[in-house]
């Protein structure tokens, strides 16, 4: 990480406009390199903060791939209030932006976190605000600060206050497996188990209302789709068809669930209206059709099909009989997920041979494919609601892990602190739980 930061600093100092000679990375609002930003540890007057809030902010901004936080040990001074800032100190370390903050305890024992963002070259305050919450919400406060900074600089909504679902499995000495569905912060912190089973759980899908999850459970020794309320744990079995019941996908307005059934002879995609329970057939082909993903218009569905011989990605419109093939590069493309602006399709891609499966991003306009990962047994990519980051499951050093990658491919980090073999991440939508 140090070397990368040094290179970035050098690049900035040389006023070089491209870090990667072989790729032209186009990011929104004309920002084409990671911005050096200094996030100074927040002061806490008369109290101790249970978390390093400034580090949470720093990591969030780094994860987006758009910011290059400067290491603390390079800081010349540690301002916590506007009057303490010496801009020369920040030009000296190459910072383009500066974030400072301080926390204090309110009479009702809540924490108040004041923060401010400065443009170093212009020596100007860009943003100053405060946010309050309980001690238990300190991580949420920090993520909120990161969201505000991200939005202020890029113009896009930050996705740092979002959540993640994922599955873990553990085998004991007798070979018995336990499967768990977890609910955590997007960065893997504060994971809670919301379902535990001795049979497989797969394909969790976060509802667009941010309150429910759909998933496949084998608790009846066959795959069936359930919907569960995340807060209350209340569950409802949604399907009970013979054969496959799988790959649930919520429509953007949450009124429908698309999924796969093989009841009519082979795996096809159907859409269920949750209110009326009316089932509509979406695909009609003897090949395997699976892994549906809705477009924002609530009518387009992307899916995986091996109708051409091997899995590739197609799209269709509800109610029409037309299907259009979307992927043509590589001998296996599956599990499509669209970025928020629908310009990028993220998927699992196999280039040649049969053993290497990588997360890839296809620019739908330019039809250019970019490999995002440096591992070779990747699965289940999920995209942040602002399209800036991807989390996927893969294997590293003999373990199943979750990796977070910025969509521009600059930053890649293993989500820490999760035990067992983890897989099947599912990103939440933007949540209205901001403090």
């Amino acid at each position, binding site marked *: 990480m140090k070397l990368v930061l040094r290179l970035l600093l050098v690049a900035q100092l040389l006023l070089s406009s491209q870090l990667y000679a072989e790729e032209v990375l186009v990011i929104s609002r004309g920002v084409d390199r990671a911005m050096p930003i200094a996030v100074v540890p927040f002061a806490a007057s008369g109290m101790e903060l249970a978390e390093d809030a400034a580090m949470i902010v720093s990591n969030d901004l780094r994860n987006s791939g758009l910011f290059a936080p400067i290491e603390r040990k390079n800081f010349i001074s540690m301002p916590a209030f506007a009057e303490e800032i010496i801009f020369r100190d920040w030009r000296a370390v190459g910072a383009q932006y500066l974030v400072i903050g301080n926390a204090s305890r309110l009479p009702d024992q809540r924490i108040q976190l004041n923060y401010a963002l400065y443009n170093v070259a212009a020596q100007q305050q860009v943003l100053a605000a405060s946010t309050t919450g309980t001690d238990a919400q300190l991580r949420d406060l920090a993520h909120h600060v990161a969201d505000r900074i991200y939005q202020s600089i890029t113009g896009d909504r930050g996705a740092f206050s979002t959540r993640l679902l994922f599955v873990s499995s553990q*085998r004991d000495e007798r070979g018995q497996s336990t499967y768990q569905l977890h609910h955590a912060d997007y960065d893997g912190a504060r994971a809670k188990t919301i379902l535990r089973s001795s049979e*497989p759980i797969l*394909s969790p899908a976060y509802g667009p209302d941010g309150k429910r999850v759909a998933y496949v459970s084998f608790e009846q020794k066959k795959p069936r789709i359930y919907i569960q309320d995340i807060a209350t744990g209340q569950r409802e079995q949604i399907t009970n068809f013979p054969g496959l019941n799988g*790959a649930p996908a919520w429509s953007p307005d949450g009124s429908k669930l698309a999924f796969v059934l093989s009841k009519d002879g082979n*795996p096809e995609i159907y859409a269920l209206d949750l209110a009326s329970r009316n089932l509509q057939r979406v695909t009609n082909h003897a090949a395997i059709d*699976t892994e549906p993903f809705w477009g924002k218009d609530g009518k387009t569905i992307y899916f995986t099909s091996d109708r051409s011989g*091997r899995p590739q990605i197609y799209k269709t419109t509800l109610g029409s009989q037309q299907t259009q093939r979307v992927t043509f590069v590589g001998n296996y493309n599956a599990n499509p997920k669209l970025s928020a602006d629908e310009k990028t399709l993220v998927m699992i891609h196999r280039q040649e041979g049969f053993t290497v499966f990588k997360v890839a991003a296809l620019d739908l306009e330019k039809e250019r494919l970019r490999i995002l990962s440096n591992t070779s047994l990747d*699965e289940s990519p999920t995209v942040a609601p602002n399209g800036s980051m991807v989390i996927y499951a893969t294997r590293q050093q003999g373990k199943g892990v979750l990796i977070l990658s910025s969509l521009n491919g600059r930053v890649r980090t293993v989500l820490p602190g999760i035990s067992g073999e983890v897989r099947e991440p599912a990103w939440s939508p933007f949540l209205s739980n901001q403090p």
Partner: protein
Amino acid sequence: MFKVHNSKFFALLLAAALVTGCASKQGETDSAVVDPNAGPLGTEAGGTDAYGTGYGQEFDSSLQQQQAEQAGQAALLATTTFYFEFDSSSLRPDALVALDAHAADLIQSGRKVILEGHTDERGTREYNMALGERRAQAVQRYLILQGVPSSQLEVVSYGEESPSVVGHDESAWSLNRRVELRK
């Protein structure tokens, strides 16, 4: 892997013996299935014309045949896992031999079985659920062709969720691409 090949090879030999045994009613024994534990009542290896021997010898050789048949059948019925090539749901020829035995057994017993389809870990989970089902359906279709009523057969896929061998190379993967016949 080597062991599996061995038992399949043995099964093939037994199958060949069965075929030969059924075709000839004259007490000929195939050298391949001579029972090494046979006492003085057993015929010698190499086969002889049964009419050239006495009644006692013919009875003993058909008993031997029966025992060989039963042993062969038991071996085939003991084979309840069928393996597949990568990305494939085609049954291997050696699988068909064992499935024939299962078909006969199922027709006769009327028992129900579950055909459980599996894949190795590579690729996406839901596609693998579908691929596992396709493999189990290949077994189901073959058994139905051999006369097993479809009501006796149930298909379930576990995709990559339930590997037989936990490992991340071809030696493990090849043992996970399978259909299991469960009673």
